[in-house]
């Protein structure tokens, strides 16, 4: 089986859309991993947290690895506090 890598640059103005639409579509269609580039995202809110939880759930069901790239330490700490870091991979 061949795996494919998908890449989404997260727009800080449209994080929810990116997670709930684009990322979900990629996870549904990918066979390897999906990388979400957070390099432009400075902060996340409760809704984004919820969307990330859902995305992690979907990725788990579909055995797709979701890689978060360039997550700043503040966001990483939020994910750590919510025990979400174990559900994603991280890339600097």
């Amino acid at each position: 089986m061949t795996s494919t890598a998908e890449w989404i640059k997260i727009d800080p103005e449209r994080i929810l859309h990116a997670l709930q639409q684009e990322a979900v579509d990629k996870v549904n269609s990918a066979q390897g991993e999906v990388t979400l580039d957070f390099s432009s995202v400075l902060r996340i809110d409760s809704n984004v947290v919820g969307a990330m939880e859902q995305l992690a759930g979907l990725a788990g069901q579909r055995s797709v690895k979701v890689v978060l790239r360039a997550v700043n330490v503040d966001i990483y700490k939020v994910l750590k506090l919510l025990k979400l870091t174990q559900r994603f991979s991280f890339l600097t």
Partner: protein
Amino acid sequence: MTENVSSLSDDRIAYLEGLVRRGRTAAAVFTQFSQQDVDRIVKAIVLAGLDQAQYLARLAIEETRLGVLEDKAIKNMVATEFVYNYIKDKPSVGVIREFPERGLVEVAEPIGLIFSLIPVTNPTSTVLFKCIMAIKTRNAVVFAPHPKAWHCCQEAIRIMYESAVEHGAPEGVFTCVESPTIPDNNYLMRHKEVKLIDATGGPGAVKAAYSSGKPALGVGPGNTPVYLEKTAHLDMAVVDIITSKTFDNGTICASEQTVVIDDEIYSLAIRKFADLGAHICSEKETEILGRMVIDPDTGFMRPMAVGQKATDIARACGLRVKPDTKLLVAPIQGVGREYPLSVEKLFPVLSVYRATSVDEALRVCVDVNHAGGLGHTAVIFSRDDEIIRTFSEAINAGRIIVNSPGSIGALGGVYNDMVPTFSFGCGTGGGNSTTDNVSLYHYLNIKRVARRTQAHMWFRVPNQIYFNMNAVENLRHFPSQSTLIVTNPLLEQMGHVDIVRRFIPAQTPVRVLAIPDAEPEVKVVMQGVEALNLHRADQIIALGGGSVIDAAKLMKLKYESPEADLEELAAPFLDIRKRVVQYPTEKINRVRMIAIPTTSGTGSEVTPFAVLIDKERGRKVTLADYSLSPDVAIVDPQFVMSMPRNLTADTGIDCLTHALEAGVSIHASPYTDSNAMQAIRLAFKYLPIAYENPRDEEARSMMHNAACIAALAFSNCSVGVNHALAHAFGARFGVGHGRANALMLPHVIAYNASVPTKFMPSPNQRGYIAHKKYAMIADLLGLAGDTVAEKVKSLVSATEQLLDRLEIPRSIADLGISKEEFERAMPDLAKVAFDDPSWRSNPRMPLVSELVELFWSAYRGRSPANLGSVSEQATTKEWASV
């Protein structure tokens, strides 16, 4: 408690879990907020709360039927405006405090999700206060208001929440448990995502919080004693007490409960209470009141009276009072169950007690304090600072309010500069962990960032050191009314004393005290003190080796400060700056001490140490303090020209050991290094010459200087494990100190140069450097080697060669000590060496097993075992950075 939790339905648990999930997410998201974000939201919610202060007060009154509308509105305003005023400029995100001079920085870390109980007595104000604290500290809160105040609290939470979220706070930052029950509370208190419980409530709720196993803030019950002392400003005191006790109908737990009034002002005070609207109860009325408002079975107030008006309480009790009565004042004759009104009364009933003395007044206040109010609040009205101080010491209360109203005073920020709060910590007396007014700092984990600091160092030496041949002539410069020369009989016979006397100004009366040539005992010291006293001496000249000079130091100490306890002053210490026992600074006599050494080894002429023999206990103690250092040292080689060869060798090696150990000491500094290195250089060069040609004046002079210079170094950075081993071995087998040092020296160099099993904590050094410093010494001596390890090996070899040249036995076995005897002694040797303070400045912390290994290494002699384990790659460049 577990049964309570198990009674929750699945739906209810799911509901509670939902609250926790929202709060937990909000708390996590909140961690990203900046100080500016937080302060913006805080200001917005403060204004929102302030705007609705009266509305929320009305809701609270309508729902709880407790208190006074106007007062509740004021409380809401204090909870917002006053609290804001206190916190607005206080940092609560990131770095919150800096102490640059201590290298300390405090950094705030939010707690996370807080579960908060709200009382029925102060519902909306407590909600407002806690919301502001939570936002300021980036925490989320799940509130559980008292069921009888749920609606007003829920509305207060809604107002604060909507304002907070509108201004950017995370959704879910505040939630409120709908119709909370005890099982709900217990479930949430034990929830793993709840990080802190803030239990402002009754004793049951507080106890449950503390029993949950979670960190908790809790208040305790109050029973505020008030001492109205005869010097008080009476008009002010009576108005303050009425203001406080009637404020919100007495619902604030810090309000006055029993006023103890001095007999001299009792009648006048009671009349003033009556004039200002209080009803003074008769004995019969007091009895009725006590029975009606206090439950005789429990001894606690009845809920029906809490927060009610004085007139309503009077009516309910069948007492006839004027319609404008503010307060019921009930005289009592004691404290305890037989005096029901001596307990906490959260309503406008005030008990008063007439005290016939200050002592009685204080005793009754203590009784009230202990009758349910430990750790909470106490009040005193007085203009006598001494009585205020005595009261403060006698009463166990987190807040002792002076000349102001108890309830409003305890809240802080109005009548005093205490921290504004709606939650009073009551310390252990109230079963709490703090006596503070709970505030923003209790809602934070405060992280301390501690930068490495360097201990302040010093380099202390005697004021004057004269050296070179005939330096003794400088005695001429020291006028004295009476001089005592302390020496030993041999030196007297050798004519050394006569030489000294020759240079003491002719008119000076001089007496000579010849003491045994051995480490001094207390009785010898006291002989000297007696002589000093007899002759009213103002100068001691110590002429001799280390023992004589040490004895003279202690004579001086006891002569100047007779109360000095030598036994106590010998108490061990780790750091001389932090020692427990301090040397006396008060002196009844003043005496100048001049030390003239007659050996070239101990350096006692400049050191702050003195060794004393305790014959009764069979031990040797070392006293150390810079006040023991002689005032003047005269290092004149003429007194060592006739020193025997073996003594020259042994004392010379003692000098070399001092310098080598000072060189690698963890307290070494550039100041001590300069002395240590020079002493090492001089000893290696001149000791063999002085040994082989005792009349060589230059060699004698240089070795005499070397001993003094080495002592200047180790006086300021101490010695090391070599001395610990030598002290133990020398004492056990009667081997002289210098020789014992010599037997250990090559092995200790090898040991210190190898990688330590345990590093010695040494804040002033960057990394382990002992081996590099040995390499530096090797270079100074011009020894062979390219790497540090090679240079260390060369230094060990050079030391061994020096010992051979001095004809010093190279192993303990060579001394004729059998292996069996040494083996038998080993447990004691190791113990004594480990107890010896000398090694505490050694670069390597010795394990007891390592001390044993070192002893055996010295027993076998030659070829130190540890050599070669230092980094072979370390180069000369490395030590250059030391």
